[in-house]
């Protein structure tokens, strides 16, 4: 049993590693358009654990009524999102390689496409949690056991609509809803603390009626454990402490890498750092 568990963990670590490589490749190939790198690298492990283990997504039967759903609020993390969908078998390598090419369906913010595992067209921040609430309410009403996971950015939580939705989630006791905050502390203009005076996110979500757990968002084991937290009659909120641009020294904690162009030299440096060379 212990061996098997270890094997799965290694698999998830390998999955996360492949995702990171692909993220850098895609960003590099996006060329002068640039890409949202920082916030993609901060949520790699979260998405690897979700798509590789925790969420009951069904690539072979993407419209199954009983499927779990993953919605991405901080949809500028498409690099990580698309690579996770690829790993989970929803999209092909060709789909990935078409990223941000004219005419591609795999654009800078995801196009809703349930067949491809994309449940929601994220991009306009602060909206996904409401939609997730509607879905979770419906699933609860039907009693089909379907769970809804929604990934939000910490900066995204500056949108008031997040808190409208959080009140709803608590009021309707949506215990089939899991909110993950990619708490990397940085937004486009600087740190969330400087730009918007964000304080005590845990306290806020707790006061709004969530079961709140803090977790190291780059620790696969810790994430898996956190997802297993009991949250009877409450939505579960995981505040995942992460590093924006994780794994690439010159990107880590740099607001300028929220969206930027990766040149050839930077690409090779980033690749070797990711590989631990």
């Amino acid at each position: 049993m212990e061996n098997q568990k270890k094997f799965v963990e290694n698999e998830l670590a390998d999955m996360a590693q492949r995702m990171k490589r692909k993220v850098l490749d895609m960003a590099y190939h996006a060329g002068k358009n640039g890409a949202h790198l920082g916030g993609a690298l901060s949520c790699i492990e979260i998405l690897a654990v979700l798509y590789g283990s925790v969420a009951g997504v069904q690539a072979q039967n993407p419209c199954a009524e009983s499927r779990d759903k993953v919605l991405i609020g901080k949809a500028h993390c498409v690099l990580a999102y698309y690579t996770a969908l690829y790993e989970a078998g929803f999209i092909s390598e060709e789909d990935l390689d078409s990223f941000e090419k004219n005419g591609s369906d795999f654009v800078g913010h995801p196009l809703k496409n349930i067949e491809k595992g994309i449940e929601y067209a994220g991009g306009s921040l602060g909206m996904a949690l409401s939609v997730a609430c509607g879905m979770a309410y419906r699933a609860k009403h039907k009693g089909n056991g379907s769970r809804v996971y929604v990934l939000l950015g910490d900066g995204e939580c500056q949108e008031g609509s997040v808190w409208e939705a959080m009140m709803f989630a608590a009021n309707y006791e949506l215990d089939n809803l899991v909110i993950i905050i990619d708490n990397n502390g940085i937004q486009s203009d600087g740190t969330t603390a400087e730009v918007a005076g964000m304080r005590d996110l845990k306290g806020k979500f707790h006061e709004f009626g969530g079961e709140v757990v803090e977790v190291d968002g780059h620790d696969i084991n810790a994430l898996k454990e956190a997802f297993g937290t009991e949250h009877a009659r409450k939505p579960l909120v995981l505040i995942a402490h992460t590093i924006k641009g994780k794994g690439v020294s010159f990107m880590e904690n740099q607001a300028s890498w929220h969206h930027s162009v990766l040149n050839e030299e930077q690409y090779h440096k980033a690749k070797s750092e990711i590989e631990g060379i």
Partner: protein
Amino acid sequence: MLEISRKNARIWSMLGMRRVVGIMLEELAGSDEHFIFATADLGRYLGAADFEDKYPGQMIDVGIAEQNLIGVSAGMQQEGFHVFAGTYATFVTARALDQIRVNLGYMNLGVKLIGAAGGLSDGNFSPTHMALEDIADIRPIPGIAIISPADGAEVVKAMYALAEYEGPAYLRLTGRANTPVIYTEDYDFKIGKAVCLKEGTEIAFVASGTIVATVQKAAAELEKKGISCKVINMHTIKPLDTQALDELEEFKLLVTVEEHMAAGGMGSAVAEYMGAKAKRPVQQIIAAGHEYPHAGEYEILLETCGLTVDGIVKKVEGRYRELQNGR
């Protein structure tokens, strides 16, 4: 199925559109277990005070949180509920416009929005509660139908039609209690198909909402002055019935009348279509204007904005006489 009869028309007129919606919510919930009425603390106002008791589990009140109202409604709609989401017209549109763009427009989720107090009817609450830009807000968003019924019977017809309609839509309610009666017997209501209420040859009126009744009276006054008027109830503002408009090419004057800002409303929609024609009548847009009216009672506001029988007759006759003189 509720009957369109003289008796019911009288009752619905007395109640006003909001409470007719309340009746219809129960009617639709009773025949569809997947029907959901969602609101942002405006359940009582929309005549749904007893709805939750009668249909437990079929009403969601999100509280005073319109952005969440749209998002939750969209999520439920995507999962197979049939959602009608209602609150004040200006809040259900402008307050949550980006949610509407993305969820109802871009993702095309078939939520039906209900906006109470479209136009000037709650004008005593001040411009914060007037909905004078709601049509302009929704109209550019691809795929959302906009319906503004002319009377209580048409609210009933429209809501039956919307329950069958797959796409997203916005139902705009106008008037207060004791609304005018247009329809006392059943008629053919189709989304996107205007109703000709009166034939004529010189001036064509196109109107929507409770103001249609005022337009009918204005047309009758003009007839007394020897000017032949056609009256069209353009209950669906989007998609516009272009076929009905094609029949107006030979008219001297086309008059659109609406309780909305002059910019971006039904009149603008008509002008956008008619403008491309080589042969077309001159168009006069009669609307609430370009400014927020000072708060006041509905009837006073209609008068201030020139949206009364006299106001309309005066403007239209003036323009018609100018045209006769080649101006």
